[in-house]
């Protein structure tokens, strides 16, 4: 568990610099130096007067398994939203006046599709359903251009 800074909330009062035992909060890019941040220390989180610091977890709980009927109904909805996204994207490339509106509709449908994916079972990158999907995607090794190395790295990194 290490600290992270929400720059939009940070008021530069710098109390986090005073309390940090390792200097991890004082960096040139505004983010915490995770390699120096002490696991679970949370001194900066408690010291910040603007609630701009929070803890990012390294481990996440195992989620209850999704009901199969809910998951499959969400899968169907996901496919429908993606279809609408593709229609919107095709229209956005046209010369017609509604191209910008089509782009907005495509973008909105991507957000809707992502929400369906999340609730269907792919909420956590570390979750077992994500792992199962990645493992099955290894089967696409050899498909032209398929970045199997990305899948392998994700399986390695998301233990």
């Amino acid at each position: 568990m290490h600290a992270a800074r929400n720059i939009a909330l940070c008021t530069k009062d710098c109390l986090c610099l005073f309390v940090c035992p390792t200097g991890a909060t004082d960096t040139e890019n505004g983010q915490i130096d995770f390699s120096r941040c002490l696991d679970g220390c949370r001194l900066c989180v408690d010291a910040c007067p603007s609630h701009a610091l929070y803890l990012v977890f390294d481990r996440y709980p195992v989620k209850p398994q999704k009901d199969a009927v809910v998951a499959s109904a969400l899968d169907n909805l996901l496919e429908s939203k993606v279809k609408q996204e593709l229609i919107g994207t095709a229209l956005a490339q046209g010369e017609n006046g509604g191209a910008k509106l089509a782009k907005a509709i495509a973008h909105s449908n991507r957000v809707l599709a992502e929400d369906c994916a999340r609730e269907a079972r792919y909420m956590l990158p570390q979750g077992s359903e994500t792992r199962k999907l990645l493992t099955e995607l290894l089967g696409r090794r050899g498909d032209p251009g398929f970045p199997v190395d990305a899948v392998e790295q994700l399986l390695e990194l998301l233990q």
Partner: protein
Amino acid sequence: MEYKEPHTNGALAAICTNLSKACDKQMRPTEAGLFDKLASYFSQSAGVAGPVSINDLDANIAADTESGYIAVESRAQQVGDRGALRCVTWGKKVTAIHKSVLVRYAKQGDALMEGSNLYVCEACGFIAIAKEVPGLCPICKAPASRFTKI
């Protein structure tokens, strides 16, 4: 191992961008980049929809409204899946906005957007046609910073 999951390439792209955003929120830029790489591959593989017109959206919107959301909602109520119910609550409203925007566009044409900008809420997909970015999303209450200007 054979690929068995019931998702099209387009859906896999959305699954991967969702997971990339989740990695970003967990301050895992490496993993986010890898999911983005997969998402790009799936987007390319999904290709481009054939000759389409703006009316093609109507049938899908009607199907979502009349059966898609109802299927999720009725089962989610039975099993007490409040996360799925939240997704349905927001999604139904956003889908209704799509419908109303399309109806208004059919009547008014480009005049609908004249002097206004288009904003999309990154949390729920709400589309605003307005001069200024909304202060708060009317559907999910996300702040102005969560809107993307199209």
